[in-house]
Structures are given as structure tokens and as C-alpha cells.
């Protein structure tokens, strides 16, 4: 802490602007929706041709301090937008706030993307940034697309199956992922039917996926961070879209509430896959629905206010045994953001509330219920010092937990947390950036009430190559307990870590390279190591504190040219957990994973394809199933009429076997046509084209294998107003 304070003081003293110099602050936003364009490249060229560059922050903000008076050329570029150029004349001592509106470049999207792919953006290590174009390029079961499709092709992200909505990132459990939607924590972001999240692609502006090594501003989880920014509605005209497919029906609407300044975006979806499954003879006993709304107001050139609300529900039976699962996620929050040259700083203030409830009724066993609710707020402050940025923030949250593994025994808990972070984004010149930071987190009611989590990220741009590295300590006091022994059981009870167990902690280290190789080709490789201690996992009703290590490498390659994009990703992983049961590889371990996807467009037609090849997952062989009458025997009840919970008997060698490899090819063909005032897209898609029997799990109660989605044809229609 002392060192960090010293560094900040030095920065403030050494890099402050001289009085005669000028400052330029601004926000890059979509010209139509006023949505911030995060990651936009802002270049300032002086009269001598010297170039200074900035990458716009998550709210589109940028700052240049200490500029010499004179004329400048300001050029702003971003994927999916037409480049913007302007000349500026800055007087001595002038402080200027600038709003830059970028016009969407839908007609030349691919060309712009190719250009952007050639120019490497400075992004943080371990980060994959998904944009609407990335989501639209993937084949999905309906033409509306979904955030989950983009996540599922990432090499470090694996899923237990196409049902259950359980994602594991680089060896972590599904409940170790922090998912934020406009800064609001979401406990259950995915639907039970795999491939679907609570967010259709149409409401996603961007999704930053940190598979490791994330900076100090994120805390409370140890496996990954998925930071989703919701799209904002059009500020000048009413628009909308409607989607219908055998999987779901949905609609989106955007309305300028105060034209030019305030907009509303709303989305609603409801599944119909249960009925479609009946028609196709495929058991898909799921129902889900979700709704999203966002009110966005531009207060002035560099200030915004927004409110976001989300609801997502699920009900379904993951296998064939009739065990019903229901979930309901509700969340809401608001955020104020402003950047001002007068203060040489940006602030964001936000408040949020999120609630998740779930029930699970296993066959022959009592109903289980669980509920978690949190509310809290954040205050963030960003100070610009020359080329450097110092970011600091404070956050406080309260949690309420309630769960019952049988209706008559209800456990209630509550706890509060507070955190403070500081990180500095230091531009050391010659393409080298360093982002040291530290997070102090406190849970006053816990056995280990506080932690200090140092983080450091670095990137070094060398022409068309960039090297990245990151390391950090991460801790998670709020854990979600799901029975890991049975993938058919996704019931999750959120709670604090029992005081008798250590707090789950991870130490991440990663190093990577990414380069533009010319001719539209870019490639990257990233290696990582995670040391895991105190992982709280639930296997067969027993809480285990597990240590482990994840070691892996991921290779990505992409090719872009107008009308064609292809991506390939490969991940190799070694993941070992160790506890009193010995050393084993947990069920979300995948030694190898390869995904290939691409989209080709010609005129009104486009074809997209996605192939996933994944190693089989570890599982424990099954002896059989029985009704456990042990309690009835112990209580001396008549054995003739005794009932007990259905129980699966496993062999002692935990996770000693592997399922066959997973392979799935999805194809989609789209035909787009313009109709008066709208664009219609007809999509024919086939999921699991080869009808491969991919194992989901073994229903030991019925001694039956349950497979994932078989060949599933769909025909969907989407109409978007223009």
C-alpha cells in the first residue's frame, strides 16, 4: 500500500501539466444511440506529425493532458464505425471537453473489421472482447443470436453440457465466475438450455471476458469475469425487431423517450422449445423467458445516466428422471458517469440490486429451495495524469442468503462486504504499459475478515505484435454450492464460506503474445497457471475444501476479409484437484478443446458454421442406484413401508473415467431481404449436423444414458426495422 501511494504521489507531482499547456477530455459515443464506444482508438496528431494515441475506456472516455498549444488532427476509429477526423485548435491553458459521435458503418462492416484486425488494440491480458458482430457470426438456433454463443466458443470456457447453463472457465467451478450486466452482479446468467443466456445478442453492446488476470477493479470471484455492457436504444427514432423460431419467440423495442437525449431499449423472449421438441420427437422439457430494459440519458456532452433491469426465469427437467429445477433471476441498477476536464477526472457512481431464487425437487426426495439477494453501490474515480491513468474505487454490498435442503430446515444468513481498489495504468512509452493495482476486501462477519489482493498487468506493443502478462491474487467469500458429482443436479445454494473452511483463493499468472500477420490474419497464444486453494465444492452432499492447479495454453487464429471471417481456437489444459479424497480431475476438466467457426456472406445470403471438438470429461463409474433406507432403519421404522432418498452408488475411484469426446457441428444459412422500412432475415439452421450422440450424463436411477442435443433443425424469422 505504501509503495502504491508513493507511486501515485510521484505521478501526480511529476506528470502534472504545466499551466500553459492544454487538456483535452472527451467521450466517444455512437452518434445514433449515444452509447459509449469502448475501446475506440483516439489518435491526436500535432503539426509536426507526432502521434499520441489512447484507447477509449469502458464508458468511451479518453483524456490527453499537457498538450502544447496549437492545431491538432483528431482521428477516432472503432470496429463497426466509420472513422472520424477533425481538426482542433487548442489555446494555452485551455481545457476542453469533447463529445465525439461515431456513425455506424453497417454497410462496410467487414471492411472496417479487417482494418481493425490489422491494427492491434491495446487490451488487457486474459481478455477476450465480444462485440455484436462476433455474436452475429455464430450459428445459433434462432436468428436473434445470444451472448452465450460467443462465450461457448472461447477456448478456456467449457460447459458440462448443452443443458444446465453451467460454464467453467480455465478450471474454475461455474459459480466462480463474476457476471456483470451494466455493473449489476448476476448470479444465474444462463438458461438451463445451453446456448442461451439471459441476454439476446440484440441487447449486448460488448462483453469483456477475462479468463484470468483481471485488474483490481473486479473482485469477489476467482475464475473469470464477464463484464457485459448493455446496448442503449436509439435516441432519434423508434426501432424494433421480432424473432420467431422453434426455440423461442422474442421482440426488441427501442424508443427515444426524449429525442436526442433519452432512450429506452426493451427486450423480451419466451421459449417454445418444449413444444418444438414434442413435434420433433426430442425430449426438451424446458421453459425459459427473459426480459431486459435499459433507460439511457445523455445529460451533457460527457455525462450519462442509465438504469438497467433484467429478469430471467427457467423451469425444466435436465434429464429424464422428472427432477424439476426452477430458477428466477431479477436485477436492477443505475449508473451515473461523467468525465470533465475541469477536474481532470472521471467519476462513476452506481447502485445495484440482484436476487436469485431456485428450487429443485429430486424424485423421491424433499424439495430444496435457495435464495440469494444482494444490494450495494460503487463509487469510481479516475484521475488522468499526463499519459497515465489512476483508477480508484470503493464498493459496499450486503447479502441475504436463505436455503433449505428440506422444507422444514431453513437456514438464513446475511453478511456485508466492503472493498477499495487502486490501480494505475502507466504508459511507459515505447509501447509498454503497466497496470499495477491492489484490492482490499473486507467481510467483517467472516472468520478471515479481510484480504489484500495485489494485481499487475503489462502489455508491450512491438509494431504489429503485442506481448502481454498478468498476475494477481483473487479471493471469493461468497460461494455457490452445486453437487459436482451429478451434472443432472444444477441446484445451487449461495452462501458464505463456512468458517470452518478456508476462503477459496486463486493466484493467476499468464503470459501471451498476439500478432497481426498480414493479409487479414491474426494469431495469438496465451499460457496460464492458476494455483487454487480452499476451493469449496460439494460432492455427494459433502463440502470439501480442495486445492488444485490449472495449467494451460490457448492458441487463437483469425482470418478476416470482406465477406468472410474464420476463427480457430485451441485450448490445452491440465487441471488437478487435491483433497482428502486424493488427487483427481474434476468434471469440468477438458484436456483439449478446439473450436472452429466462420461466416461467409455473398449478397443476401450468408452461411455460418461452428465446430466444437472437446475431450471427454472425467466422471465416476456407477455401481447402481437404490433408495437409501438408512434413516428409516436407524429410527426403527417398519421396513416394509419405509421411504428414502434415491441414491447413486459410485465406485471409490472418483472421476477415474472419461466420457467419449464431444463433437458438434452447427450450420446456419441466412437470407436477408429488405422490405419497406424493415429488414427480414430468414434463417435455416441445423444443430449437431452429424447427429452425434454426445453424452450428457448417466441417469443412474433409470440406468439410462442421457445424451445432449441430437440433430435439431430449425427455421426462424427475424424482422428488424431500419
Amino acid at each position, binding site marked *: 500500500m505504501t509503495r502504491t501511494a508513493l507511486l501515485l504521489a510521484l505521478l501526480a507531482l511529476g506528470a502534472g501539466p504545466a499551466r500553459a499547456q492544454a487538456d483535452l477530455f472527451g467521450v466517444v459515443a455512437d452518434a445514433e444511440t449515444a452509447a459509449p464506444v469502448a475501446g475506440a482508438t483516439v489518435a491526436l496528431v500535432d503539426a509536426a506529425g507526432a502521434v499520441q494515441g489512447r484507447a477509449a475506456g469502458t464508458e468511451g472516455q479518453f483524456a490527453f493532458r499537457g498538450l502544447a498549444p496549437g492545431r491538432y488532427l483528431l482521428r477516432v476509429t472503432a470496429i463497426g464505425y466509420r472513422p472520424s477526423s477533425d481538426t482542433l485548435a487548442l489555446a494555452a491553458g485551455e481545457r476542453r471537453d469533447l463529445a465525439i459521435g461515431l456513425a455506424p458503418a453497417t454497410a462496410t462492416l467487414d471492411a472496417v473489421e479487417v482494418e481493425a484486425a490489422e491494427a492491434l488494440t491495446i487490451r488487457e491480458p486474459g481478455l477476450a472482447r465480444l462485440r455484436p458482430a462476433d455474436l452475429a457470426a455464430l450459428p445459433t438456433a434462432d436468428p436473434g443470436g445470444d451472448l452465450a454463443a460467443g462465450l461457448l466458443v472461447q477456448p478456456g470456457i467449457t460447459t458440462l453440457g448443452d443443458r444446465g447453463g453451467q460454464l467453467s472457465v480455465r478450471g474454475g467451478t461455474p459459480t466462480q465466475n463474476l457476471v456483470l450486466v451494466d455493473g449489476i452482479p448476476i448470479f444465474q446468467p444462463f438458461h438451463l438450455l445451453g446456448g442461451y443466456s439471459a441476454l439476446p445478442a440484440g441487447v449486448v453492446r460488448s462483453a469483456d471476458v477475462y479468463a484470468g488476470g483481471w485488474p483490481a477493479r473486479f473482485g469477489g470471484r476467482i475464475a473469470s469475469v464477464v463484464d457485459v455492457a448493455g446496448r442503449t436504444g436509439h435516441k432519434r427514432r423508434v426501432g424494433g425487431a421480432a424473432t420467431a423460431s422453434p426455440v423461442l419467440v422474442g421482440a426488441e423495442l427501442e424508443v427515444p423517450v426524449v429525442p436526442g437525449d433519452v432512450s429506452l431499449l426493451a427486450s423480451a423472449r419466451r421459449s417454445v422449445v418444449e413444444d418444438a421438441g414434442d413435434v420433433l420427437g426430442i425430449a426438451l422439457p424446458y421453459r425459459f423467458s427473459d426480459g431486459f430494459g435499459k433507460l439511457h440519458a445523455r445529460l451533457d456532452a460527457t455525462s450519462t445516466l442509465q438504469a438497467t433491469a433484467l429478469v430471467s426465469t427457467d423451469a425444466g427437467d435436465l434429464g429424464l428422471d422428472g427432477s424439476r429445477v426452477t430458477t428466477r433471476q431479477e436485477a436492477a441498477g443505475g449508473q451515473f458517469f461523467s468525465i470533465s476536464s475541469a477536474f481532470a477526472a472521471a467519476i462513476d457512481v452506481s447502485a445495484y440490486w440482484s436476487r436469485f431464487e431456485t428450487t429443485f425437487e429430486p424424485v423421491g426426495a424433499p424439495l430444496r429451495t435457495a435464495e440469494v439477494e444482494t444490494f450495494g453501490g460503487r463509487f469510481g474515480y479516475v484521475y488522468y495524469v499526463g499519459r497515465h491513468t489512476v483508477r480508484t474505487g470503493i464498493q459496499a454490498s450486503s447479502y441475504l442468503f436463505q436455503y433449505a435442503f428440506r422444507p422444514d430446515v431453513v437456514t438464513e444468513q446475511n453478511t456485508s462486504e466492503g472493498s477499495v481498489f487502486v490501480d494505475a495504468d502507466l504508459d511507459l512509452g515505447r509501447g509498454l504499459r503497466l497496470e499495477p493495482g491492489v484490492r482490499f476486501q473486507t467481510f467483517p462477519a467472516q472468520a478471515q475478515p479481510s484480504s489484500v489482493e495485489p494485481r499487475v498487468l503489462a502489455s508491450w506493443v512491438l509494431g504489429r505484435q503485442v506481448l502481454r502478462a498478468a498476475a494477481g491474487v483473487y479471493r471469493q467469500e461468497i460461494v455457490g454450492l452445486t453437487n459436482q458429482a451429478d451434472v443432472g443436479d444444477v441446484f445451487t445454494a449461495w452462501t458464505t464460506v463456512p468458517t470452518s473452511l478456508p476462503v477459496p483463493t486463486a493466484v493467476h499468472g499468464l503470459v501471451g503474445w498476439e500478432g497481426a500477420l498480414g493479409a487479414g490474419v491474426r494469431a495469438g497464444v496465451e499460457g496460464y497457471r492458476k494455483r487454487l486453494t480452499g476451493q469449496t465444492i460439494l460432492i455427494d452432499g459433502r463440502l470439501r475444501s480442495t486445492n488444485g492447479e490449472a495449467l494451460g495454453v490457448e492458441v487463437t487464429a483469425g482470418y478476416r476479409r470482406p465477406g468472410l471471417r474464420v476463427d480457430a481456437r485451441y485450448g490445452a489444459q491440465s487441471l488437478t484437484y487435491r483433497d482428502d479424497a486424493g488427487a483427481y480431475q474434476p468434471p469440468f476438466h477438458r484436456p483439449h478443446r478446439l473450436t472452429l467457426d466462420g461466416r461467409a456472406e455473398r449478397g443476401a445470403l450468408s452461411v455460418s458454421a461452428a*465446430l466444437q471438438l472437446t475431450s471427454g470429461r472425467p466422471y465416476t463409474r456407477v455401481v447402481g442406484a437404490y433408495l437409501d433406507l438408512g434413516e428409516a432403519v436407524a429410527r426403527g421404522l417398519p421396513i416394509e413401508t419405509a421411504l428414502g432418498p434415491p441414491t447413486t452408488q459410485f465406485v471409490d475411484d472418483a472421476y477415474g473415467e472419461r466420457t467419449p469426446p464431444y463433437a458438434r457441428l452447427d450450420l446456419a444459412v441466412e437470407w436477408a431481404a429488405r422490405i419497406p422500412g424493415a429488414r427480414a432475415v430468414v434463417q435455416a439452421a441445423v444443430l449437431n449436423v452429424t447427429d452425434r450422440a454426445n453424452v450428457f450424463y448417466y441417469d443412474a436411477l433409470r440406468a439410462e444414458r442421457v445424451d445432449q442435443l441430437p440433430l435439431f433443425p430449425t427455421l426462424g424469422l427475424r424482422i428488424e426495422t431500419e
Partner: protein
Amino acid sequence: MRAAAVLLLLAALASACDTAFDPRVEDAEAFAVFGTLDGRAATQRLRVQDLAAPLFETPDRLPATVTSTELTTGQTTAWRDSLVTLVTGDRAHVFLAALAVAPGETHRVEVVRAAGGARSTVTIALPAPSVAPRPQDSTDTAVQVDVAGLGGRLVDPVVRYGVRRPADAAGPSVPAAAVPHAPAGGLLVPAFLATAEVRAGAILYGSAEDGDAVLTDARFEGVVVSEAPQPVANGVGGVAWAVPISIPIPFASESVTRVGFIDGR
């Protein structure tokens, strides 16, 4: 087109990979057996479930035979299958045997699959407790005994006194609750304050002209039940046991007088 061909080729190759998946371990463990060998019942009952079969598909007859052998005498008993319907509507197999079990016996129950011969076994040793008096403390009116070899949990312990009055040779018996103690040393010590307990049985009333009543014997009675079911070997589940006991308490003559002549009215 080339990319599409590569994708299809990879998908075809991947799909050609073996998808065989049989996570079951055949006959690693054969049956689940639950129940209690109960010395108070003339017919014993055990629930037997076939681990190899789907849980909710119960055949009319379980493809198994169940026998039990009393290891001391070698006497073998064949159990017969019966089918019951649970409140859930599911069916279950209950095996029955006309078998009386007694303290000191050891029964081995075997469930053998008809095809293949896989077997699950469980051996239940029923305890034979003994009672021994403790040296009596002259300052204490309590009579203490050590009970050894319980092997389980004692339920409803009772000390039953036999008394005889001069006019009634057969005499009545008087039950009195024992007061279990757990002294250092581990053994159960039922102690009974003779005065209090005998007074509780007002039947001793009357030290009339036909003479005082005398204590003829005392027995320690109750039911001993297993602390935990005996686990099933090569299977799952457990079989508990319960046996009634009635053990004479040897007592010293001086305690007879003290116990027997307490309450004259």
C-alpha cells in the same frame, strides 16, 4: 468452400469417434439390503434392492435368493420374496423369514444373484450381555451393577424385583426404572436406589402380622439395539439388530434386607 469442406471433414471424423459409454460397473456391488434382525419378532424382514436394475422398475420377482445362517449352530434359513407397494406407488421387495433371533447368536445373511452368482453379505452378531454387582459402599443406599458386553444401545432399562411375602409363596414382581450412570471406565452402570424404586411399587405394602416381604431376585431387563447398522459387504445398506435381554442380578444377602424392608405403609 475449402473451409466448409474442412469443417465437414473434421466433423465427420469426430463423429466417427466411438461414442460408446457404459459407466456401470457390472456386479462390483450387487444389492442394497436394509432392515433389522429383531429378537422381539417371530418373523424377520429385509428390504432388498438390485443395484443393477433401474430404480423405479421393480420386477415381480427379484432375481436373487436370500439365505441366512446362524454361525454357531450352522442352521440355515431360506427367506422368501414378497412384493409391497409403497405410498409413492413404486414397488419394493421385502424378504421374510420365520426366524427367532436371540442374544449371543451370529447370523450371516447372503443375497445371491441368480445369474452370475454375485453376492452381497452381512453378518450380524447379537450381543450376550452380562451383569455383575459392584462392591457396595456401606454409606450408599444404591445398589450398583456393571453391565458388560452390551454391544449396543440399551433402550428402556428396567430392574425387575421378585418379592415374596410369607403368605404368598409365588409373590409378585415389581418393575422399577433403572438409573443409568456412565462412570469413568466406560461400562454402563445401572444404579437403583432400592428405597426409592421399591417404594414406587406400592404392591410391597404390608409388613403385617403374616411377616415381612423378602426380595427373592432382581433382573436387569431392556432391549439392546445396535448403535449403527452393520454394513453390507459387496453391496450397500445396513442391517441393524435389536434383542431383548433379561439378566439376573446377583446380589449380596445384606442388600436383600436393605432393599426388601423399606416401606411398611
